[in-house]
Protein backbone atom coordinates (compact mmCIF):
# COMPACT_ATOMS: atom_id res chain seq x y z
CA UNK A 1 0.00 0.00 0.00
CA UNK A 2 2.65 2.50 1.03
CA UNK A 3 5.50 2.79 -1.41
CA UNK A 4 9.00 3.83 -0.46
CA UNK A 5 8.64 7.10 -2.31
CA UNK A 6 5.55 8.03 -0.36
CA UNK A 7 7.64 8.47 2.74
CA UNK A 8 9.43 11.41 1.27
CA UNK A 9 6.21 13.26 0.50
CA UNK A 10 5.25 15.76 3.15
CA UNK A 11 1.94 14.47 4.47
CA UNK A 12 -1.01 16.73 3.87
CA UNK A 13 -2.80 18.06 6.96
CA UNK A 14 -5.68 15.62 6.57
CA UNK A 15 -4.75 11.96 6.17
CA UNK A 16 -6.07 10.30 3.07
CA UNK A 17 -6.99 13.66 1.59
CA UNK A 18 -3.89 13.19 -0.51
CA UNK A 19 -5.38 10.59 -2.79
CA UNK A 20 -3.74 11.37 -6.10
CA UNK A 21 -6.13 12.37 -8.80
CA UNK A 22 -6.55 9.64 -11.38
CA UNK A 23 -5.44 10.32 -14.91
CA UNK A 24 -9.06 9.95 -16.00
CA UNK A 25 -10.04 12.69 -13.57
CA UNK A 26 -7.33 14.92 -14.92
CA UNK A 27 -8.44 14.35 -18.50
CA UNK A 28 -11.95 15.28 -17.64
CA UNK A 29 -10.70 18.40 -15.91
CA UNK A 30 -8.93 19.41 -19.10
CA UNK A 31 -12.13 18.88 -21.02
CA UNK A 32 -13.44 21.72 -18.90
CA UNK A 33 -17.10 22.25 -18.32
CA UNK A 34 -18.38 19.49 -20.57
CA UNK A 35 -21.95 19.02 -19.46
CA UNK A 36 -22.04 15.26 -19.86
CA UNK A 37 -24.08 12.66 -18.06
CA UNK A 38 -21.44 12.08 -15.41
CA UNK A 39 -21.11 15.77 -14.61
CA UNK A 40 -24.84 16.07 -14.22
CA UNK A 41 -25.07 12.99 -12.00
CA UNK A 42 -22.13 14.20 -9.92
CA UNK A 43 -23.75 17.56 -9.30
CA UNK A 44 -27.06 15.91 -8.43
CA UNK A 45 -25.35 13.67 -5.90
CA UNK A 46 -23.46 16.47 -4.16
CA UNK A 47 -26.32 18.99 -4.40
CA UNK A 48 -27.64 18.29 -0.87
CA UNK A 49 -24.24 19.23 0.51
CA UNK A 50 -24.00 22.36 -1.63
CA UNK A 51 -27.47 23.50 -0.56
CA UNK A 52 -26.73 22.80 3.10
CA UNK A 53 -23.35 24.50 2.84
CA UNK A 54 -24.82 27.67 1.38
CA UNK A 55 -27.85 27.87 3.70
CA UNK A 56 -26.38 26.59 6.96
CA UNK A 57 -22.72 27.56 6.70
CA UNK A 58 -21.90 30.26 4.14
CA UNK A 59 -24.88 32.55 4.67
CA UNK A 60 -24.81 32.22 8.51
CA UNK A 61 -21.09 32.97 8.48
CA UNK A 62 -21.62 36.19 6.54
CA UNK A 63 -24.80 37.01 8.49
CA UNK A 64 -23.02 36.64 11.81
CA UNK A 65 -20.29 38.99 10.56
CA UNK A 66 -23.03 41.53 9.79
CA UNK A 67 -24.79 41.02 13.13
CA UNK A 68 -21.48 41.48 14.91
CA UNK A 69 -21.62 45.16 13.90
CA UNK A 70 -25.15 45.59 15.23
CA UNK A 71 -27.18 45.61 18.41
CA UNK A 72 -29.86 42.98 17.94
CA UNK A 73 -32.28 41.54 20.48
CA UNK A 74 -34.37 39.47 18.00
CA UNK A 75 -37.57 41.38 18.82
CA UNK A 76 -36.45 44.65 17.22
CA UNK A 77 -34.59 44.98 13.92
CA UNK A 78 -30.78 45.07 14.19
CA UNK A 79 -29.22 48.52 14.70
CA UNK A 80 -25.82 49.26 13.16
CA UNK A 81 -23.33 50.20 15.88
CA UNK A 82 -20.06 49.73 14.02
CA UNK A 83 -17.21 48.31 16.08
CA UNK A 84 -18.92 48.79 19.44
CA UNK A 85 -19.32 45.07 20.10
CA UNK A 86 -15.63 44.47 19.49
CA UNK A 87 -14.65 47.46 21.60
CA UNK A 88 -16.86 46.18 24.36
CA UNK A 89 -14.88 42.92 24.48
CA UNK A 90 -11.77 44.86 25.41
CA UNK A 91 -13.40 46.11 28.61
CA UNK A 92 -15.63 43.09 29.28
CA UNK A 93 -14.05 41.30 32.23
CA UNK A 94 -16.10 38.18 31.70
CA UNK A 95 -14.85 38.04 28.12
CA UNK A 96 -11.18 38.09 29.10
CA UNK A 97 -11.99 35.56 31.80
CA UNK A 98 -13.68 33.22 29.34
CA UNK A 99 -10.87 33.58 26.80
CA UNK A 100 -8.28 32.83 29.47
CA UNK A 101 -10.25 29.86 30.82
CA UNK A 102 -10.69 28.33 27.40
CA UNK A 103 -7.10 28.75 26.23
CA UNK A 104 -5.80 27.55 29.58
CA UNK A 105 -7.96 24.45 29.32
CA UNK A 106 -6.80 23.76 25.75
CA UNK A 107 -3.13 24.22 26.67
CA UNK A 108 -3.53 21.90 29.63
CA UNK A 109 -5.62 19.26 27.89
CA UNK A 110 -4.35 18.80 24.31
CA UNK A 111 -0.61 18.33 25.01
CA UNK A 112 -1.35 15.80 27.76
CA UNK A 113 -4.14 13.87 26.02
CA UNK A 114 -2.17 13.08 22.84
CA UNK A 115 0.87 11.45 24.54
CA UNK A 116 -1.42 9.46 26.87
CA UNK A 117 -3.46 8.23 23.89
CA UNK A 118 -0.32 7.42 21.92
CA UNK A 119 1.06 5.40 24.83
CA UNK A 120 -2.19 3.44 25.10
CA UNK A 121 -2.28 2.89 21.33
CA UNK A 122 1.35 1.70 21.30
CA UNK A 123 0.59 -0.77 24.08
CA UNK A 124 -2.45 -2.07 22.18
CA UNK A 125 -0.30 -2.42 19.06
CA UNK A 126 2.27 -4.66 20.80
CA UNK A 127 0.72 -8.00 19.75
CA UNK A 128 -1.28 -8.41 22.94
CA UNK A 129 -4.02 -10.90 23.67
CA UNK A 130 -7.64 -9.79 23.75
CA UNK A 131 -7.13 -6.59 21.76
CA UNK A 132 -10.90 -6.23 21.29
CA UNK A 133 -11.51 -6.23 25.03
CA UNK A 134 -8.85 -3.61 25.78
CA UNK A 135 -10.03 -1.45 22.92
CA UNK A 136 -13.58 -1.68 24.26
CA UNK A 137 -12.50 -0.67 27.75
CA UNK A 138 -10.69 2.44 26.54
CA UNK A 139 -13.52 3.39 24.21
CA UNK A 140 -16.41 2.86 26.62
CA UNK A 141 -16.30 6.31 28.29
CA UNK A 142 -16.73 7.76 24.81
CA UNK A 143 -20.23 6.32 24.40
CA UNK A 144 -21.37 7.80 27.71
CA UNK A 145 -23.61 10.83 27.10
CA UNK A 146 -21.89 14.09 28.07
CA UNK A 147 -24.73 14.90 30.43
CA UNK A 148 -24.14 11.66 32.34
CA UNK A 149 -20.38 12.27 32.29
CA UNK A 150 -20.99 15.66 33.89
CA UNK A 151 -23.24 14.28 36.62
CA UNK A 152 -20.90 11.35 37.31
CA UNK A 153 -17.72 13.42 37.45
CA UNK A 154 -19.23 16.13 39.59
CA UNK A 155 -19.50 13.42 42.22
CA UNK A 156 -16.14 11.78 41.42
CA UNK A 157 -14.41 15.14 41.82
CA UNK A 158 -16.35 16.03 44.94
CA UNK A 159 -14.07 16.95 47.87
CA UNK A 160 -16.63 15.18 50.03
CA UNK A 161 -15.82 11.47 49.65
CA UNK A 162 -15.32 11.78 45.89
CA UNK A 163 -13.76 8.84 44.08
CA UNK A 164 -10.71 10.78 42.89
CA UNK A 165 -9.69 12.04 46.29
CA UNK A 166 -10.35 8.61 47.76
CA UNK A 167 -7.97 7.16 45.19
CA UNK A 168 -5.38 9.88 45.85
CA UNK A 169 -5.63 9.21 49.58
CA UNK A 170 -4.64 5.59 48.88
CA UNK A 171 -1.27 6.79 47.61
CA UNK A 172 -0.98 9.33 50.40
CA UNK A 173 -2.02 12.47 48.57
CA UNK A 174 -4.45 14.88 50.14
CA UNK A 175 -6.53 15.83 47.09
CA UNK A 176 -7.64 19.42 46.49
CA UNK A 177 -11.24 20.64 46.50
CA UNK A 178 -11.54 20.12 42.76
CA UNK A 179 -15.00 21.56 42.20
CA UNK A 180 -14.90 24.29 44.84
CA UNK A 181 -11.42 25.76 44.58
CA UNK A 182 -11.34 28.03 41.52
CA UNK A 183 -7.69 27.15 40.85
CA UNK A 184 -8.48 23.44 40.54
CA UNK A 185 -11.61 23.57 38.38
CA UNK A 186 -9.75 23.45 35.06
CA UNK A 187 -7.30 20.69 36.05
CA UNK A 188 -10.36 18.78 37.28
CA UNK A 189 -12.05 19.16 33.90
CA UNK A 190 -8.83 18.09 32.17
CA UNK A 191 -8.79 14.87 34.21
CA UNK A 192 -12.44 14.31 33.39
CA UNK A 193 -11.84 14.87 29.68
CA UNK A 194 -8.80 12.57 29.73
CA UNK A 195 -11.16 9.79 30.71
CA UNK A 196 -12.85 10.03 27.33
CA UNK A 197 -9.98 10.07 24.88
CA UNK A 198 -10.88 6.65 23.49
CA UNK A 199 -11.42 8.00 19.99
CA UNK A 200 -7.83 9.25 19.81
CA UNK A 201 -6.57 5.83 20.89
CA UNK A 202 -8.64 4.14 18.18
CA UNK A 203 -7.49 6.57 15.48
CA UNK A 204 -3.82 6.26 16.45
CA UNK A 205 -4.07 2.47 16.75
CA UNK A 206 -5.52 2.26 13.24
CA UNK A 207 -2.62 4.39 12.00
CA UNK A 208 -0.06 2.24 13.81
CA UNK A 209 -1.51 -0.91 12.29
CA UNK A 210 -1.06 0.54 8.83
CA UNK A 211 2.65 1.19 9.17
CA UNK A 212 4.16 -1.25 6.65
CA UNK A 213 5.89 -4.20 8.26
CA UNK A 214 8.80 -4.17 5.83
CA UNK A 215 9.90 -0.80 7.18
CA UNK A 216 10.31 -2.35 10.60
CA UNK A 217 12.05 -5.39 9.16
CA UNK A 218 14.44 -3.17 7.26
CA UNK A 219 15.19 -1.13 10.37
CA UNK A 220 15.84 -4.31 12.37
CA UNK A 221 18.27 -5.47 9.69
CA UNK A 222 19.93 -2.06 9.99
CA UNK A 223 20.31 -2.75 13.71
CA UNK A 224 17.87 -0.20 15.08
CA UNK A 225 16.68 -0.74 18.63
CA UNK A 226 13.04 -0.36 19.58
CA UNK A 227 13.45 3.25 20.64
CA UNK A 228 15.11 4.13 17.35
CA UNK A 229 12.40 2.24 15.47
CA UNK A 230 9.79 4.33 17.27
CA UNK A 231 11.63 7.57 16.59
CA UNK A 232 12.63 6.96 12.96
CA UNK A 233 9.92 4.64 11.63
CA UNK A 234 6.73 4.77 13.72
CA UNK A 235 6.64 8.45 14.54
CA UNK A 236 7.26 9.76 11.00
CA UNK A 237 4.79 7.26 9.53
CA UNK A 238 1.96 8.28 11.82
CA UNK A 239 2.93 11.94 12.23
CA UNK A 240 0.18 13.18 9.94
CA UNK A 241 -2.44 11.23 11.89
CA UNK A 242 -1.08 12.58 15.18
CA UNK A 243 -1.35 16.03 13.69
CA UNK A 244 -4.94 15.34 12.62
CA UNK A 245 -5.95 14.29 16.15
CA UNK A 246 -4.07 17.27 17.56
CA UNK A 247 -6.03 19.73 15.43
CA UNK A 248 -9.39 18.09 16.02
CA UNK A 249 -8.86 17.81 19.76
CA UNK A 250 -7.89 21.48 19.88
CA UNK A 251 -11.10 22.45 18.09
CA UNK A 252 -13.22 20.23 20.34
CA UNK A 253 -11.54 21.60 23.45
CA UNK A 254 -12.10 25.19 22.36
CA UNK A 255 -15.79 24.29 22.16
CA UNK A 256 -16.24 22.50 25.48
CA UNK A 257 -19.82 23.10 26.57
CA UNK A 258 -22.06 20.39 27.99
CA UNK A 259 -20.05 19.06 30.92
CA UNK A 260 -19.21 22.42 32.56
CA UNK A 261 -22.81 23.57 32.07
CA UNK A 262 -24.07 20.49 33.92
CA UNK A 263 -21.40 20.63 36.60
CA UNK A 264 -21.33 24.35 37.36
CA UNK A 265 -24.79 25.77 36.67
CA UNK A 266 -25.00 29.53 37.36
CA UNK A 267 -28.01 28.94 39.64
CA UNK A 268 -25.62 27.43 42.14
CA UNK A 269 -22.74 29.88 41.90
CA UNK A 270 -24.68 33.13 42.18
CA UNK A 271 -24.97 33.68 38.42
CA UNK A 272 -21.39 32.71 37.75
CA UNK A 273 -20.15 29.59 35.99
CA UNK A 274 -18.42 27.75 38.79
CA UNK A 275 -16.44 29.38 41.60
CA UNK A 276 -15.29 32.84 40.43
CA UNK A 277 -16.43 32.03 36.87
CA UNK A 278 -13.63 29.48 36.65
CA UNK A 279 -15.76 27.21 34.44
CA UNK A 280 -16.93 30.00 32.13
CA UNK A 281 -15.78 28.64 28.78
CA UNK A 282 -16.05 30.44 25.50
CA UNK A 283 -19.10 28.75 24.00
CA UNK A 284 -20.90 28.90 27.34
CA UNK A 285 -20.44 32.66 27.40
CA UNK A 286 -21.50 32.94 23.76
CA UNK A 287 -24.60 30.86 24.48
CA UNK A 288 -25.34 32.91 27.56
CA UNK A 289 -25.13 36.19 25.66
CA UNK A 290 -27.21 34.92 22.74
CA UNK A 291 -29.97 32.91 24.36
CA UNK A 292 -30.19 34.12 27.95
CA UNK A 293 -29.49 37.83 27.45
CA UNK A 294 -30.59 38.01 23.79
CA UNK A 295 -27.57 40.05 22.81
CA UNK A 296 -27.38 38.50 19.36
CA UNK A 297 -25.06 41.21 18.08
CA UNK A 298 -22.49 40.77 20.82
CA UNK A 299 -22.82 36.98 20.58
CA UNK A 300 -22.11 37.19 16.84
CA UNK A 301 -18.99 39.24 17.51
CA UNK A 302 -17.92 36.58 20.03
CA UNK A 303 -18.60 33.92 17.39
CA UNK A 304 -16.38 35.69 14.86
CA UNK A 305 -13.57 36.04 17.36
CA UNK A 306 -13.87 32.29 18.03
CA UNK A 307 -13.77 31.69 14.29
CA UNK A 308 -10.60 33.77 13.91
CA UNK A 309 -8.97 32.20 16.97
CA UNK A 310 -9.70 28.76 15.51
CA UNK A 311 -8.19 29.71 12.16
CA UNK A 312 -5.08 31.19 13.79
CA UNK A 313 -4.52 28.13 15.99
CA UNK A 314 -5.03 25.64 13.16
CA UNK A 315 -2.74 27.66 10.88
CA UNK A 316 0.00 27.86 13.49
CA UNK A 317 -0.32 24.13 14.16
CA UNK A 318 -0.12 23.43 10.42
CA UNK A 319 3.02 25.52 10.02
CA UNK A 320 4.69 23.99 13.06
CA UNK A 321 3.77 20.46 12.00
CA UNK A 322 5.08 21.00 8.46
CA UNK A 323 8.41 21.94 10.02
CA UNK A 324 8.41 18.86 12.22
CA UNK A 325 7.52 16.54 9.40
CA UNK A 326 10.19 18.16 7.24
CA UNK A 327 13.02 17.54 9.71
CA UNK A 328 11.87 13.96 10.15
CA UNK A 329 12.15 13.38 6.45
CA UNK A 330 15.69 14.66 6.41
Amino acid at each position, binding site marked *: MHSESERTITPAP*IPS*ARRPQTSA*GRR*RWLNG*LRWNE*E*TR*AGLVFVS*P*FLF*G*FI*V*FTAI*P*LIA*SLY*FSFTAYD*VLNPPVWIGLDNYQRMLTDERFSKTLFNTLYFVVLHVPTAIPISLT*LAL*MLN*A*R*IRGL*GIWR*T*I*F*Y*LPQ*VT*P*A*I*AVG*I*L*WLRILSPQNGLLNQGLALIGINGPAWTIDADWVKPALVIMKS*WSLGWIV*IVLLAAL*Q*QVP*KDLYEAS*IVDGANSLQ*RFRFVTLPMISNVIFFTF*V*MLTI*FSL*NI*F*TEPLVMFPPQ*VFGGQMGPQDSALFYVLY*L*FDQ*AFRNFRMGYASAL*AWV*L*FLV*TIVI*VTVQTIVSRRLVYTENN
Partner: protein
Amino acid sequence: MNTTLRSAPIIEPQPLAEVGKHTPLNSIARLLLYAVLILCSFLFLAPFAWLISNSLKDASHAFDPNWIPRPIEWSNYARIFEEVPLLLMARNSIIVAFLGVVAVVISSSMIAYGLSRLHFPGRNLVFILVLGTMMLPGAVTMVPVYLIWKQLGLVNTFGPLWLGNLFGSSFYIFMLRQFFTGIPQDLIDAARVDGASYYGIYWRIMLPLSRSALLAVVIFEFQAKWNDFMGPLIYIQNPNLRTLPLGLQLFVEHMGYGQFHWELLFAASVLVTLPMIILFFVAQKQFIQGIATTGIKG
Protein backbone atom coordinates in the same frame (compact mmCIF):
# COMPACT_ATOMS: atom_id res chain seq x y z
CA MET B 1 -19.94 16.97 16.07
CA ASN B 2 -18.03 15.47 18.90
CA THR B 3 -19.33 11.97 18.53
CA THR B 4 -19.08 11.89 14.80
CA LEU B 5 -15.37 12.22 14.48
CA ARG B 6 -14.19 9.79 17.06
CA SER B 7 -15.65 6.91 15.22
CA ALA B 8 -14.88 7.80 11.66
CA PRO B 9 -11.59 5.96 11.32
CA ILE B 10 -13.01 2.69 12.68
CA ILE B 11 -13.97 1.70 9.17
CA GLU B 12 -10.76 1.02 7.36
CA PRO B 13 -11.15 0.11 3.75
CA GLN B 14 -7.55 -0.97 3.35
CA PRO B 15 -6.33 -4.14 4.99
CA LEU B 16 -4.38 -3.52 8.15
CA ALA B 17 -0.93 -4.91 8.65
CA GLU B 18 -0.78 -7.82 11.01
CA VAL B 19 -0.44 -6.45 14.49
CA GLY B 20 2.98 -5.83 15.87
CA LYS B 21 4.88 -8.85 14.52
CA HIS B 22 7.93 -6.66 14.54
CA THR B 23 8.13 -6.17 18.28
CA PRO B 24 9.42 -9.33 19.89
CA LEU B 25 9.14 -8.45 23.54
CA ASN B 26 10.73 -10.64 26.14
CA SER B 27 8.50 -12.16 28.75
CA ILE B 28 9.31 -9.69 31.53
CA ALA B 29 8.51 -6.72 29.34
CA ARG B 30 5.33 -8.50 28.27
CA LEU B 31 4.30 -9.08 31.87
CA LEU B 32 4.94 -5.43 32.63
CA LEU B 33 2.90 -4.40 29.60
CA TYR B 34 -0.09 -6.41 30.78
CA ALA B 35 0.29 -5.02 34.29
CA VAL B 36 0.18 -1.45 32.96
CA LEU B 37 -2.78 -2.28 30.73
CA ILE B 38 -4.69 -3.77 33.63
CA LEU B 39 -3.95 -0.73 35.76
CA CYS B 40 -5.12 1.61 32.98
CA SER B 41 -8.26 -0.48 32.45
CA PHE B 42 -9.01 -0.21 36.12
CA LEU B 43 -8.71 3.58 35.94
CA PHE B 44 -11.03 3.67 32.93
CA LEU B 45 -13.63 1.30 34.41
CA ALA B 46 -13.68 2.52 38.02
CA PRO B 47 -16.00 5.47 37.28
CA PHE B 48 -18.57 3.08 35.76
CA ALA B 49 -18.46 0.79 38.79
CA TRP B 50 -18.77 3.82 41.04
CA LEU B 51 -21.72 5.09 39.00
CA ILE B 52 -23.61 1.83 39.35
CA SER B 53 -22.71 1.44 43.01
CA ASN B 54 -23.92 4.95 43.83
CA SER B 55 -27.14 4.52 41.87
CA LEU B 56 -28.11 1.76 44.28
CA LYS B 57 -27.41 3.60 47.52
CA ASP B 58 -30.04 4.67 49.96
CA ALA B 59 -30.59 8.45 50.04
CA SER B 60 -29.23 8.78 53.57
CA HIS B 61 -26.07 6.86 52.62
CA ALA B 62 -25.50 8.62 49.31
CA PHE B 63 -22.18 10.05 50.48
CA ASP B 64 -20.82 6.88 52.07
CA PRO B 65 -17.46 5.95 50.61
CA ASN B 66 -18.14 2.20 50.49
CA TRP B 67 -18.39 0.50 47.10
CA ILE B 68 -21.02 -2.06 48.02
CA PRO B 69 -24.22 -0.23 48.93
CA ARG B 70 -25.94 -1.27 52.12
CA PRO B 71 -28.88 -1.54 51.81
CA ILE B 72 -29.12 -2.05 48.05
CA GLU B 73 -31.91 0.27 46.98
CA TRP B 74 -33.29 -1.06 43.68
CA SER B 75 -36.32 1.16 44.16
CA ASN B 76 -34.20 4.16 43.05
CA TYR B 77 -34.78 2.95 39.51
CA ALA B 78 -38.52 2.91 40.03
CA ARG B 79 -38.55 6.29 41.77
CA ILE B 80 -36.73 8.05 38.96
CA PHE B 81 -39.66 7.26 36.65
CA GLU B 82 -41.98 8.97 39.14
CA GLU B 83 -39.75 12.06 39.47
CA VAL B 84 -39.07 12.62 35.77
CA PRO B 85 -41.13 11.68 32.69
CA LEU B 86 -38.29 9.47 31.54
CA LEU B 87 -40.35 7.46 29.07
CA LEU B 88 -41.66 10.56 27.34
CA MET B 89 -38.13 11.96 27.10
CA ALA B 90 -36.84 8.64 25.77
CA ARG B 91 -39.59 8.59 23.15
CA ASN B 92 -38.63 12.11 22.03
CA SER B 93 -34.95 11.18 21.89
CA ILE B 94 -35.73 8.10 19.81
CA ILE B 95 -37.89 10.05 17.35
CA VAL B 96 -35.21 12.68 16.80
CA ALA B 97 -32.48 10.05 16.55
CA PHE B 98 -34.46 7.94 14.09
CA LEU B 99 -35.28 10.84 11.77
CA GLY B 100 -31.72 12.15 12.00
CA VAL B 101 -30.20 8.75 11.21
CA VAL B 102 -32.39 8.11 8.17
CA ALA B 103 -31.73 11.59 6.79
CA VAL B 104 -27.99 11.54 7.35
CA VAL B 105 -27.40 8.05 5.96
CA ILE B 106 -29.17 8.81 2.69
CA SER B 107 -27.70 12.28 2.19
CA SER B 108 -24.14 11.52 3.28
CA SER B 109 -23.89 8.37 1.17
CA MET B 110 -25.17 10.21 -1.91
CA ILE B 111 -22.69 13.02 -1.45
CA ALA B 112 -19.85 10.60 -0.73
CA TYR B 113 -20.65 8.65 -3.90
CA GLY B 114 -20.55 11.83 -5.95
CA LEU B 115 -17.23 12.82 -4.41
CA SER B 116 -15.56 9.42 -4.72
CA ARG B 117 -16.77 7.85 -7.95
CA LEU B 118 -18.02 10.57 -10.27
CA HIS B 119 -15.82 13.04 -12.05
CA PHE B 120 -17.13 16.52 -12.58
CA PRO B 121 -15.65 19.99 -12.63
CA GLY B 122 -15.32 21.49 -9.15
CA ARG B 123 -15.32 18.16 -7.37
CA ASN B 124 -12.12 18.88 -5.48
CA LEU B 125 -13.45 22.27 -4.42
CA VAL B 126 -16.57 20.59 -3.01
CA PHE B 127 -14.37 18.15 -1.13
CA ILE B 128 -12.32 20.99 0.33
CA LEU B 129 -15.58 22.61 1.50
CA VAL B 130 -16.53 19.32 3.18
CA LEU B 131 -13.21 19.29 5.03
CA GLY B 132 -13.66 22.95 5.92
CA THR B 133 -17.06 22.46 7.52
CA MET B 134 -15.59 19.55 9.48
CA MET B 135 -13.25 22.02 11.17
CA LEU B 136 -15.80 24.82 11.59
CA PRO B 137 -17.14 24.94 15.15
CA GLY B 138 -20.94 24.93 15.25
CA ALA B 139 -20.87 27.80 17.74
CA VAL B 140 -19.63 30.18 15.03
CA THR B 141 -22.88 29.93 13.07
CA MET B 142 -25.15 29.31 16.06
CA VAL B 143 -26.95 32.68 16.09
CA PRO B 144 -27.87 32.99 12.39
CA VAL B 145 -28.84 29.32 12.17
CA TYR B 146 -31.18 29.87 15.11
CA LEU B 147 -32.67 32.87 13.33
CA ILE B 148 -33.25 30.76 10.20
CA TRP B 149 -35.18 28.11 12.15
CA LYS B 150 -37.09 30.85 13.95
CA GLN B 151 -37.97 32.47 10.64
CA LEU B 152 -39.25 29.10 9.41
CA GLY B 153 -41.43 28.84 12.52
CA LEU B 154 -39.70 25.63 13.59
CA VAL B 155 -38.41 26.70 17.01
CA ASN B 156 -39.97 24.47 19.65
CA THR B 157 -40.38 21.59 17.22
CA PHE B 158 -38.07 18.64 16.50
CA GLY B 159 -37.23 20.21 13.12
CA PRO B 160 -34.01 22.07 14.02
CA LEU B 161 -32.72 18.96 15.79
CA TRP B 162 -32.63 16.74 12.68
CA LEU B 163 -33.60 18.55 9.45
CA GLY B 164 -30.01 19.71 8.95
CA ASN B 165 -29.10 16.04 8.49
CA LEU B 166 -30.81 16.11 5.09
CA PHE B 167 -27.76 17.95 3.78
CA GLY B 168 -25.18 15.42 4.92
CA SER B 169 -22.65 15.54 7.71
CA SER B 170 -19.05 16.19 6.76
CA PHE B 171 -17.59 13.47 8.99
CA TYR B 172 -19.77 10.77 7.47
CA ILE B 173 -19.19 12.11 3.96
CA PHE B 174 -15.47 11.93 4.59
CA MET B 175 -15.68 8.42 6.04
CA LEU B 176 -18.00 6.99 3.37
CA ARG B 177 -15.94 8.60 0.63
CA GLN B 178 -12.92 6.69 1.92
CA PHE B 179 -14.96 3.50 1.93
CA PHE B 180 -16.45 3.98 -1.54
CA THR B 181 -13.00 4.69 -2.95
CA GLY B 182 -11.98 1.19 -1.89
CA ILE B 183 -14.74 -0.55 -3.88
CA PRO B 184 -13.22 -2.16 -7.00
CA GLN B 185 -13.68 -0.24 -10.24
CA ASP B 186 -14.28 -3.55 -12.10
CA LEU B 187 -17.68 -3.92 -10.45
CA ILE B 188 -18.71 -0.47 -11.57
CA ASP B 189 -17.37 -0.98 -15.09
CA ALA B 190 -19.27 -4.26 -15.35
CA ALA B 191 -22.48 -2.57 -14.24
CA ARG B 192 -21.87 0.23 -16.76
CA VAL B 193 -21.49 -2.34 -19.53
CA ASP B 194 -24.78 -3.87 -18.41
CA GLY B 195 -26.37 -0.48 -18.88
CA ALA B 196 -26.69 0.69 -15.26
CA SER B 197 -26.99 4.44 -14.74
CA TYR B 198 -24.96 6.33 -12.12
CA TYR B 199 -28.01 6.29 -9.90
CA GLY B 200 -28.36 2.53 -10.38
CA ILE B 201 -24.69 2.04 -9.47
CA TYR B 202 -25.17 4.05 -6.29
CA TRP B 203 -28.26 2.10 -5.33
CA ARG B 204 -27.36 -1.43 -6.45
CA ILE B 205 -23.58 -1.52 -5.98
CA MET B 206 -22.30 1.15 -3.63
CA LEU B 207 -24.97 0.90 -0.93
CA PRO B 208 -25.21 -2.93 -0.73
CA LEU B 209 -21.41 -3.26 -0.67
CA SER B 210 -21.04 -0.68 2.08
CA ARG B 211 -23.42 -2.14 4.62
CA SER B 212 -20.84 -2.22 7.40
CA ALA B 213 -19.80 1.39 6.81
CA LEU B 214 -23.42 2.53 6.59
CA LEU B 215 -24.23 0.66 9.76
CA ALA B 216 -21.37 2.50 11.43
CA VAL B 217 -22.91 5.80 10.33
CA VAL B 218 -26.27 4.67 11.70
CA ILE B 219 -24.76 3.85 15.06
CA PHE B 220 -22.62 6.96 15.36
CA GLU B 221 -25.44 9.28 14.38
CA PHE B 222 -27.89 7.58 16.70
CA GLN B 223 -25.38 8.09 19.47
CA ALA B 224 -24.80 11.72 18.47
CA LYS B 225 -28.52 12.52 18.50
CA TRP B 226 -29.13 10.62 21.72
CA ASN B 227 -26.36 12.58 23.43
CA ASP B 228 -27.06 15.96 21.82
CA PHE B 229 -27.55 18.57 24.49
CA MET B 230 -26.92 21.95 22.90
CA GLY B 231 -29.57 21.53 20.17
CA PRO B 232 -32.49 20.81 22.51
CA LEU B 233 -31.20 23.44 24.94
CA ILE B 234 -31.50 26.13 22.25
CA TYR B 235 -34.62 24.98 20.43
CA ILE B 236 -36.92 23.14 22.86
CA GLN B 237 -38.96 24.92 25.51
CA ASN B 238 -42.09 22.78 25.38
CA PRO B 239 -41.82 20.28 28.27
CA ASN B 240 -43.48 17.60 26.16
CA LEU B 241 -40.72 17.79 23.55
CA ARG B 242 -37.75 17.47 25.92
CA THR B 243 -35.17 14.88 25.00
CA LEU B 244 -33.29 12.87 27.62
CA PRO B 245 -30.20 15.09 28.03
CA LEU B 246 -32.32 18.25 28.33
CA GLY B 247 -34.70 16.58 30.76
CA LEU B 248 -31.82 15.37 32.88
CA GLN B 249 -30.24 18.82 32.97
CA LEU B 250 -33.51 20.34 34.17
CA PHE B 251 -33.73 17.56 36.73
CA VAL B 252 -30.27 18.54 37.99
CA GLU B 253 -31.37 22.16 38.32
CA HIS B 254 -34.69 21.17 39.85
CA MET B 255 -33.05 19.02 42.50
CA GLY B 256 -30.93 21.98 43.54
CA TYR B 257 -27.42 21.55 44.83
CA GLY B 258 -28.33 21.61 48.50
CA GLN B 259 -30.58 18.58 48.60
CA PHE B 260 -29.18 16.68 45.69
CA HIS B 261 -30.61 13.23 45.31
CA TRP B 262 -27.45 11.75 43.94
CA GLU B 263 -28.78 8.23 43.95
CA LEU B 264 -31.64 9.25 41.64
CA LEU B 265 -29.41 11.29 39.35
CA PHE B 266 -27.04 8.35 39.12
CA ALA B 267 -29.88 5.92 38.41
CA ALA B 268 -31.05 8.24 35.63
CA SER B 269 -27.50 8.49 34.28
CA VAL B 270 -27.21 4.71 34.20
CA LEU B 271 -30.50 4.45 32.31
CA VAL B 272 -29.43 7.08 29.76
CA THR B 273 -26.00 5.50 29.27
CA LEU B 274 -27.09 1.87 29.09
CA PRO B 275 -28.67 1.98 25.60
CA MET B 276 -25.46 3.54 24.25
CA ILE B 277 -23.31 0.83 25.81
CA ILE B 278 -25.58 -1.89 24.42
CA LEU B 279 -25.48 -0.21 21.02
CA PHE B 280 -21.71 -0.06 21.18
CA PHE B 281 -21.43 -3.78 21.90
CA VAL B 282 -23.75 -4.53 18.99
CA ALA B 283 -21.58 -2.30 16.81
CA GLN B 284 -18.41 -3.87 18.13
CA LYS B 285 -19.68 -7.27 16.95
CA GLN B 286 -20.46 -5.88 13.49
CA PHE B 287 -17.15 -4.12 13.43
CA ILE B 288 -15.21 -7.30 14.23
CA GLN B 289 -17.30 -9.25 11.72
CA GLY B 290 -16.57 -6.63 9.10
CA ILE B 291 -12.84 -6.77 9.61
CA ALA B 292 -12.93 -10.58 9.77
CA THR B 293 -14.57 -10.87 6.36
CA THR B 294 -12.01 -8.57 4.79
CA GLY B 295 -9.28 -10.77 6.27
CA ILE B 296 -8.05 -8.20 8.74
CA LYS B 297 -6.94 -9.31 12.14
CA GLY B 298 -8.70 -7.23 14.78
